[in-house]
């Protein structure tokens, strides 16, 4: 009996605590999740609507009131979108531009960053200042003369203007790699230097292998940047056999504006690689984002 009262007491006591714990759980767990997930749904909505629209029939897409879920998912829309415009050609063109730009950045940006972070020479602080300055310079200031130079070289309507810049290394990538390399202990390169290793050897055998994380981030950024670019191809590519997906989609829209289901299907295919790459390289994205905050 005594035992049972004792246990009754021991149950009764935490009952009040239980209530406050429940309140605590509501306030600290449920409420945040409620806010985060409802706002998250809003953020996801355009993407979801893109996918849902791409699966509807022409009749269903204009139906009133609209259906949320496609009644009879039209997977064939993706095939039709590829037939309605030279989509595979645009894709190959865009992939080619991405590949060349990535190669250019992965060669040049680390070389320049190495010069700024690991070689002690007079000019490096000036070069660094210039790199920061070019990041703020509006591209329009140089856009027109650069176009004229390329036009005089006969490079308009070729891929040269859209790829050659990458082999000079972009300011942002050089900046990112320089910040990263500053964190690599000096002793590593200094020891090799004392052993008589050439600068190129130190760069390729010691430093370059340590750059996997930032180089992955740069490859991803470059891919997404080139894949998404609209203005560059718009200015330089007239011939539609050279068009990228961006240009092709815009061209298709201005000609066949009402075929929303095909347009959405093509836009969904266009979006997919960037989303996939983002999921794969997510950690690198975050790290690069964090590295940017050290910019003070």
């Amino acid at each position, binding site marked *: 009996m005594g035992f049972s009262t004792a246990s009754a007491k021991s149950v009764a006591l935490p009952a009040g605590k239980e209530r406050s714990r429940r309140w605590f759980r509501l306030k*600290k767990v449920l409420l945040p*999740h409620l806010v*985060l997930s409802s*706002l*998250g749904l809003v*953020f*996801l909505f*355009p*993407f979801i609507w893109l996918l849902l629209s791409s699966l509807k029939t022409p009749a269903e897409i*204009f139906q*009133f*009131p*609209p259906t949320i879920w496609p009644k009879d998912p039209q997977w064939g829309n993706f095939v039709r979108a590829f037939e309605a415009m030279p989509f595979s050609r645009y894709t190959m063109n865009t992939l080619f531009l991405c590949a060349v730009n990535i190669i250019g950045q992965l060669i040049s940006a680390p*070389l*320049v960053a190495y*010069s700024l972070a690991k*070689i*002690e*020479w007079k000019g490096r602080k000036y*070069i660094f200042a*210039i*790199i920061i300055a*070019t990041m*703020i*310079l*509006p591209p*329009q*200031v140089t*856009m*027109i*003369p*650069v176009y*004229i130079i390329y036009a005089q070289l006969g490079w308009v309507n070729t891929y040269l203007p859209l790829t050659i810049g990458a082999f000079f*290394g972009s*300011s942002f990538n050089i900046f990112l790699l320089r910040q990263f390399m500053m964190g690599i202990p000096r002793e590593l390169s200094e020891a090799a230097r004392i052993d008589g290793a050439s*600068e190129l050897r130190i760069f390729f055998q010691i430093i370059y292998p340590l750059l996997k994380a930032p180089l992955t981030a740069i490859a991803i950024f470059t891919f997404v940047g080139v894949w*998404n670019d*609209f*203005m560059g191809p718009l*200015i330089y590519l007239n011939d539609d056999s050279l068009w990228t*997906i*961006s240009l092709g*989609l*815009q061209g298709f*829209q*201005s000609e066949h504006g009402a075929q929303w289901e095909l*347009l*959405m299907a093509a*836009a*969904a295919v*266009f*979006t997919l690689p*960037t*989303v996939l*790459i*983002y999921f794969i390289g997510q950690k690198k994205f975050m790290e690069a*984002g964090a590295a940017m*905050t050290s*910019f*003070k």
Partner: protein
Amino acid sequence: MAQKSLAMRRKRRDFWMGLAFAFPFIAGFLFLTVIPFFQSLYFSFTEYDIFTEAKWVGLDNYTRIFQDENFYKALSNTFFMAFIAVPVSITVSLLIALLLNMKVKGIAFYRTVYYLPTVIPGVASSLLWLWILNPEMGILNTALRAVGLPDPAWLSDPAFTKPSLIIMGLFGTGGGALIYLAALQGIPREFYEAASIDGANAWHKFKCIVLPALSPVTLFQLIMGLIGAFQIFTEAFILSQDNLGGPDQSMLFYAVYLYNEAFVNLNMGYASALAWVLFVIVMLITLVIFKSSLRWVYYGGE
């Protein structure tokens, strides 16, 4: 003596090595920035259509700019985005960062979700929003009508084109939020604890700890955002449907106008002058913000 010449040799070697490694950037800077920079200044004093020789016209282009209605239209549209849309989106990205900084399970998943819209290509998201904002068939107006709210004509009504762009832009605030988040997580816990002991409430902590600690990031986002406003192009180009700025030229932004003058009308001289005016405006704004930042940005090191 030998020691000294060895050091000298090392120094000279380092100089040439440094120069050699930096060569790609130096060459690019020279040919794609410095030379074009001065060429563009020269072109801004000429009339030039690429096909015929550039003709010197002195300050004509500049005097024309200041009498050009389209220029003022483009400038005021762009200022609207710079001084209204940018602060709005910075505020929203801060709020989202605060949400994402909560200590709950699965927060990494939410971060992914909020960042996702920023990776959608500009052309794809513009086409998608063209569809979402369609006045008759678009899902947004259908939803608004269903709950009895007014259904503006969004992209065909000059009063609603810029709000449309702002709404679109809000879906890209996940990028700014992540930058804020990284800074938020760098604030030492002791700051909050010390403030709690002093009896500070949540609002005080936000005002006196969080905002100052984030101010360098706010400066960064503000400058990048303002520069970005002068680059608004793809969305405006696609959503306006006529590349002249859409209804009542309400989406004629600076970069769009410059593109039209340069690459549609081939007024390379006039467009170069526009570019230089843009350059001066951007420099002035950046300078003013940097100057004012001395009063509102706090660096942890000091």
